[in-house]
């Protein structure tokens, strides 16, 4: 009751206004009064009121007319009607016009307290709900979709452009670049965000399984179909279906897929019922679909159907600016998950991360940092905590030197690392004697990192 809500009391009777004014002042509300509809409207236009107590019968503008005008002005204002017992039917009608509730004169003080407190609490929850919804809408990216490079900024901009439309999107990029995260970002920025995004990894399933996965099946449709099962298209109703590795689907499935995407109707396997589902399609591939089309492996009509709006996610090696940001993000993520006190990545370790070519892209970086957090014993991730192939050979991965000598140097360094620089075991593994190994270490300038 210490709420500083603003209340306006509109009643032509002075004694009613004063009694209610006094009542609400004791509850520490900000209270104002108006003796008729004209004054109430003027006050309402100037001030911001959370709740209005409105007498239904007043000279001039009636309570009901005033209700309509006030609601036109501010849809969210709470209006509680005060009515004589005889006017209850009118008050009930007024509820349909947006009044929150009505109370009959003389008012039971307890009822008044309840109605007003409930109304204000409901309004407060409504506002909180709107704020929360607003904050959800501000989140345009899933957690791991991070990047400050110009390339990623362009991707974020494209996501915002395509998301609000219902256009089919095609996401291209190497494995591990975050195609699924981009698909999720498109989904959560679209009007479909309150419905699910259903992911189907088309490359992971055999043709028959994929068909059942996508369209569902009826009980007894095939051996093992003990129950009726909804397919992914049905589950994506209202939301988005994300078809990952679309380039790997069979010609038969390509035909089916094209038909479903165009008609948004299908039947479960073994069923006759035509099911309609409203979904948006986002597809992804790391293959060169144009080549597949030329080679006749991928249908041209499906290609054009899917390739309406394309987003190319650059590999991590082409956006080095993102590596420190991503590494810090993963550091924070895994230290929290593992409850470790690791605060940073050493400059040397970061240098190694920057030099490495990341063939597995962001996924590989994430795994490397996770591994480093597991083995790290100090407050700072060092070079030694990084996976061996990164910390021992980084200088080669960034290099274009593909000579036999460079390959030999890299291989020897790798074997030495694997055997913790035990010369005998390394020599044995390499199939050379210890003297030869010493000579090669010396020739290539290999050094054990402290």
């Amino acid at each position, binding site marked *: *009751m210490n709420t500083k809500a603003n209340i306006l009391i509109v009643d032509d009777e002075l004694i009613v206004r004063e*009694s209610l004014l*006094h009542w609400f002042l*004791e509850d*520490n509300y900000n209270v104002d009064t108006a003796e008729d509809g004209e004054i109430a409207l003027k006050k309402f236009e100037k001030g911001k009121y959370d709740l209005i107590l409105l007498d239904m019968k007043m000279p001039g503008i009636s309570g009901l007319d005033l209700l309509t005008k006030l609601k036109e002005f501010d849809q969210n204002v709470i209006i509680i009607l005060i009515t004589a017992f005889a006017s209850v039917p009118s008050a009930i009608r007024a509820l349909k016009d947006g009044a929150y509730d009505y109370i009959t004169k003389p008012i039971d003080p307890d009822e008044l307290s309840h109605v007003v407190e409930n109304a204000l609490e409901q309004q407060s929850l409504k506002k909180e709900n709107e704020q929360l919804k607003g904050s959800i809408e501000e989140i345009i990216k899933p957690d791991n979709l991070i990047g400050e490079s110009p390339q990623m900024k362009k991707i974020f901009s494209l996501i915002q452009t395509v998301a609000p439309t219902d256009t089919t999107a095609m996401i291209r990029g190497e494995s591990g670049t975050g195609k699924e995260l981009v698909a999720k970002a498109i989904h959560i920025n679209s009007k479909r965000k309150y419905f699910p995004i259903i992911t189907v990894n088309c490359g992971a399933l055999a043709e028959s399984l994929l068909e059942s996965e996508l369209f569902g099946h009826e009980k007894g449709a095939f051996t093992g179909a003990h129950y009726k099962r909804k397919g992914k298209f049905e589950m994506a109703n209202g939301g988005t279906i994300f078809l990952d590795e679309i380039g790997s689907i069979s010609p038969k499935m390509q035909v089916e897929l094209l038909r479903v995407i165009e008609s948004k109707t299908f039947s479960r396997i073994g069923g006759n019922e035509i099911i309609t589902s409203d979904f948006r399609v986002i597809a992804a591939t790391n293959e060169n679909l144009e080549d597949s089309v030329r080679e006749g492996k991928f249908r041209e009509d499906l290609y054009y159907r899917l390739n309406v709006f394309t987003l190319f996610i650059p590999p991590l090696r082409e956006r080095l600016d993102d590596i420190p940001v991503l590494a810090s993000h993963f550091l924070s993520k895994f230290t929290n998950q593992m409850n470790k006190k690791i605060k940073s990545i050493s400059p040397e370790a970061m240098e190694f991360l920057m030099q490495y070519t990341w063939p597995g892209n962001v996924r590989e970086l994430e795994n490397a940092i996770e591994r480093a957090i597991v083995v790290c014993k100090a407050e700072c991730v060092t070079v030694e905590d990084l996976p061996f192939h990164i910390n021992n050979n980084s200088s080669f991965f960034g290099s274009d030197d593909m000579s036999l000598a460079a390959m030999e140097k890299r291989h020897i360094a790798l074997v030495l690392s694997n055997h913790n620089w035990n010369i005998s075991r390394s020599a044995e593994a390499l199939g050379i004697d210890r003297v030869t190994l010493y000579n090669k270490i010396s020739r290539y300038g290999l050094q054990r990192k402290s």
Partner: protein
Amino acid sequence: MQKIYLVPVNFSNVTLLNRIVHALKEQFPNRIHLSDIDLDITKAFSAERNQYFSTKLIADAIPMTDGLDGKVILLVEFDLYVPVFTFVFGEAQLNGKLSIVSVCRLHEEFYNGSTDDELLFDRALKEILHELGHNYGLHHCRDWECVMHSSSIIEQVDIKGSFYCPKCIQGVPGLANILMHRTK
């Protein structure tokens, strides 16, 4: 320290009155005084409602209490109302001089026919302290342990505490020191 006048109006329950005065004197040592005014209550009577209009009674009492230098609490046994409400337990001038408390609906007989003098006394004391708190400018308090918690029904009077909470007590002159002395 400012005086507090308890003014019974047509009040017949002397035992209750004495207990209230005694209890208030413990809370407000040397500040409680009994007084008498010649208030014509008939002008505030509503035959239709069989109740007395509390705001009018307070208004009529103002000129009669000019000579009383302090807070004035009218204590009555009849039922009170303000026109917009079905009834009120009492009414106070917020940050003002006068308040009125009715014990009519504080009687247990009003609800179930049985008499409970102890309960009546507790309730009356709570409502007097509550209206007095308004006279000192206190608003309703969210703390159910505080006597300044709003009470629109008798159950709420019974549930709420019998004295001011540590925050509200700061608004009632003299009480904080008294509490400190008591704790010592």
